[in-house]
Every structure is written in structure tokens, then in C-alpha cells.
């Protein structure tokens, strides 16, 4: 079980890079068509077909990356906090937060400089949001989120130990309530007065993501009970996964039609969130040997550094391809392959080089 978590972290970072590469593949199809088809008009190249459904399904599943990181973190913080007083816990957490926060500030700053070079501007408020809320780029929200969870972890650990079902139930309820508000937002509908209280659960990631950290903590504390329960119900879990994948696609299409958007980020839908929980539970009872396990474990061990740096690497690669090899923009599978490969290997190479040069003493401040 323990070693499978390192593998899960590796799978999660691969999924994260794939998920963010899809953004550029869709951009290429929808907006850069003129670079590879002479008479292309925006969006004329992306009508629903088997391939776009494949992209949607893989994108939906790849979105499990952040829930998986939180799940693994929950388990590991359970390990680290077990038998420790609140005071001892915070001593350890303080060090942990430093090594999360400094690389995050460095990579957020690099992203801001990159955006400034692209001609964007930043007001003071916007800059504050960049660093406080993780708005340098899409994936950066994860860092303020995990720091909030780390700060709460000594209390969550005790809550899960004393009242496991209540803790999981509260996590589920908070996710459900914040999920409902997303549907109103995506459909551009104001909340009815009777549901005004839901505004309390709107925005932020803590409430919608807390459940996965709690489930990770629960798995650490009640490993045997949970594993044997899941083994006995594994066929139900697989059936529900298949059901939620199909239902998620139907929901995706219905929401696209109703909202008038070209694409929606299905990670925020409740169906998809429940799918992620089921995928994580299924992983707990799955066999541990998969193709290239040990290589994926290496990715798992370096996941934080890859996570922080891959976004900018992918963007630079996509823009280079736009200028230098535009014909690749129309070859979505090849484009995705290149972006994922570069998004993983370039950060790994930079990390490797950082260990070799005199900057090794600051390695942890760059990559966590």
C-alpha cells in the first residue's frame, strides 16, 4: 500500500501535465487553425466527434491529479502527525511549509515575469491575488490549498481519529454544497433566494477539496478496515466508475448546450468529483505493478518541482511549435505527446542539473 502511494503521486503528475497539455491542444484546434489549414475559421475544426469525446474523457479522468495529491498528502500527514502533540506537529509542519512556499513564490514570480514579457500588466491587487490565492497560472491554486490543509491537519487528524464517519460526512457535505454553486455559475443563473445560504460555500478550493485529504488521513488511521471494505465492494466501485464516466459525458454535453460555452472544465462538476473519489478508492485495492512502475515512482518523488514548472515549459513549447513547426498543431495526438514529454522531461532535467551545480544548497528552495 505504502509504495503504491509513490506510484500514485507519479501517475498524478503525469495526469496533471496531460491535463494542462490538452488546453494547448484545444487552443491549437480552436484558434490556431490558420497556421495549418489555409481557410480555417476559429472553432471550425472542433465539432463533436469520436476524437473530441476521447479528449473529453481522458481530460476528465486526468483531472484526478489534484485529488490524488491531496489523498496521498492526507495519508502522509497522518503518518507524520501520529503520536505527536499539536506543538510537535507544528514544528514539523513549519519546515514543510517553508519548502512548499519558497519554490511556489519563485515559480509564481517567474510566471509573472513571463506574462509581463508577453505584454500583460499587474495591478497591486492582482499581484496580491497571484501570491496569496495562487493565481499566477491555473494549477498554482494547489499550493495555497495544500498549505491551508497542512495548517488544519493536526486538528483534522484528531477529528478523523475520534469521529471518522462524521469527518468524512462533513467533507462530503461541504464538497456537495460548494459543487451546487458551480452549476449556477456555469449556467449563469442567480441563486434563488431560498438557496442564498449556498453563497457561503462559493469560491475557494478548500471546501470542495477537503474531502480527499480527509479520506487520505482516514486511510492511514483505518488502513485495514477500509482496505477490506473496499476489497469486498470492488465490483460495485468499478461499476460506479463506469457509470460516472458515461454520466459525466452526458452532463458535460448538457452543460455545454445549456451554457453556450465551447468547453467547460468538468473537474468542478459534482459527478466528476464523485468519479475522482471512486477512482482513488479503486486504486487502493488495485495491484501495484503497472507498466514502468519504477520510472513513474521517480516522477512521484519529484512531483512538486514538475508541478510548479511544467506549465511554463508547456506554454513555451506550444508557442515555439506555433512559430516553427505549425503543421504539428493540426496533429493533436503528436502535439499532446510532445507537450507531455517536454512538460515532464524539461523540469526533470532542470532538477537534475540543479543537483550537479553549486546551486545544490538551494535545491529545496527551487523545487521543494
Amino acid at each position, binding site marked *: *500500500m505504502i509504495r503504491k502511494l509513490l506510484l500514485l503521486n507519479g501517475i498524478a503528475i503525469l495526469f496533471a501535465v496531460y491535463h494542462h497539455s490538452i488546453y494547448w491542444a484545444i487552443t491549437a484546434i480552436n484558434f490556431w487553425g490558420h497556421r495549418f489549414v489555409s481557410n480555417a475559421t476559429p472553432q471550425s475544426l472542433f465539432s463533436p466527434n469520436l476524437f473530441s469525446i476521447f479528449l473529453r474523457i481522458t481530460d476528465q479522468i486526468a483531472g484526478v491529479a489534484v485529488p490524488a495529491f491531496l489523498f496521498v498528502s492526507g495519508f*502522509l500527514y497522518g503518518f*507524520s502527525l501520529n*503520536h505527536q502533540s499539536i506543538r510537535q506537529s507544528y514544528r514539523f509542519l513549519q*519546515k514543510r511549509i517553508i519548502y512548499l512556499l519558497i519554490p511556489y513564490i519563485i515559480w509564481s514570480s517567474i510566471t509573472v515575469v513571463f506574462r509581463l514579457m508577453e505584454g500583460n500588466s499587474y495591478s497591486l491587487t492582482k499581484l496580491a491575488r497571484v501570491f496569496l490565492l495562487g493565481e499566477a497560472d491555473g494549477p498554482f491554486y494547489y499550493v495555497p490549498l495544500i498549505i491551508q490543509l497542512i495548517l488544519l491537519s493536526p486538528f483534522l487528524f484528531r477529528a478523523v481519529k475520534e469521529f471518522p464517519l462524521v469527518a468524512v460526512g462533513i467533507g462530503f457535505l461541504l464538497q456537495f454544497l460548494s459543487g451546487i454553486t458551480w452549476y449556477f455559475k456555469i449556467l449563469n443563473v442567480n441563486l434563488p433566494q431560498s438557496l442564498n445560504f449556498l453563497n457561503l460555500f462559493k469560491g475557494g478550493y478548500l471546501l470542495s477539496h477537503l474531502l480527499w485529504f480527509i479520506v487520505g488521513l482516514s486511510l492511514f488511521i483505518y*488502513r485495514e478496515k477500509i482496505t477490506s471494505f473496499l476489497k469486498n465492494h470492488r465490483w460495485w466501485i468499478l461499476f460506479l466508475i463506469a457509470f460516472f464516466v458515461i454520466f459525466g459525458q452526458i452532463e458535460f454535453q448538457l452543460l455545454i448546450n445549456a451554457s453556450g460555452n465551447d468547453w467547460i472544465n468538468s473537474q468542478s462538476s459534482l459527478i466528476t468529483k464523485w468519479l475522482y473519489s471512486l477512482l482513488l478508492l479503486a486504486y487502493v485495492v488495485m495491484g501495484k505493478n503497472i507498466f514502468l512502475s519504477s520510472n513513474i515512482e521517480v516522477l512521484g518523488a519529484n*512531483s512538486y518541482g514538475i508541478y510548479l514548472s511544467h506549465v511554463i515549459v508547456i506554454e513555451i513549447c506550444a508557442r515555439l511549435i506555433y512559430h516553427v513547426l505549425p503543421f504539428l498543431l493540426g496533429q493533436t495526438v503528436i502535439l499532446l505527446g510532445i507537450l507531455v514529454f517536454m512538460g515532464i522531461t524539461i523540469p526533470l532535467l532542470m532538477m537534475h542539473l540543479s543537483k550537479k551545480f553549486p546551486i*545544490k544548497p*538551494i535545491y529545496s528552495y527551487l523545487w521543494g
Partner: protein
Amino acid sequence: METQMIINNFILNELAKGRKKTINNDEDLLAEGIIDSLGILQLVAFIEEKFNFTVPDEDVVIENFMSVNALSSYLDQKLAAKH
């Protein structure tokens, strides 16, 4: 003694990532921030590969992974029982 050295070297070169120049075998690895919680998973993977034995889930407790000494005495015990 050899186990201690192998573990110390691995932690120093692969997990501490420049956070420390030397590691005292009694130092609290987590509390001192020498390794992070993900480092525990890497340690388990390393031990399993290097010593060719599977670390049971129930043995992955902070007491066994707190320091180089704690980990090496846990390992010595397990390896002696294996032979």
C-alpha cells in the same frame, strides 16, 4: 553499521537535497526538515529495492523512520529474522 551508512548516504544524497551537509544518525529526520513526508515513501521504495524485502504496511510508523539509527535497527532486526 553498514546499514546505517547506506541509509545515511541515501538520505543525504537523494532526500535531503542540499538541506544538510551531514546528517547525525540520531537526528529527527522529519522534525528537522531533513526529509519531507514524500521522502518516507522514497525511503520505503529504496529499502525494498536495496535490501530485497517488502516493508509491511504496519511497520511504516514514525518510530521506525524517525532517525537513521531507528531505521537501521529496524532493518537489522528484520534482515536478521529473514536469514
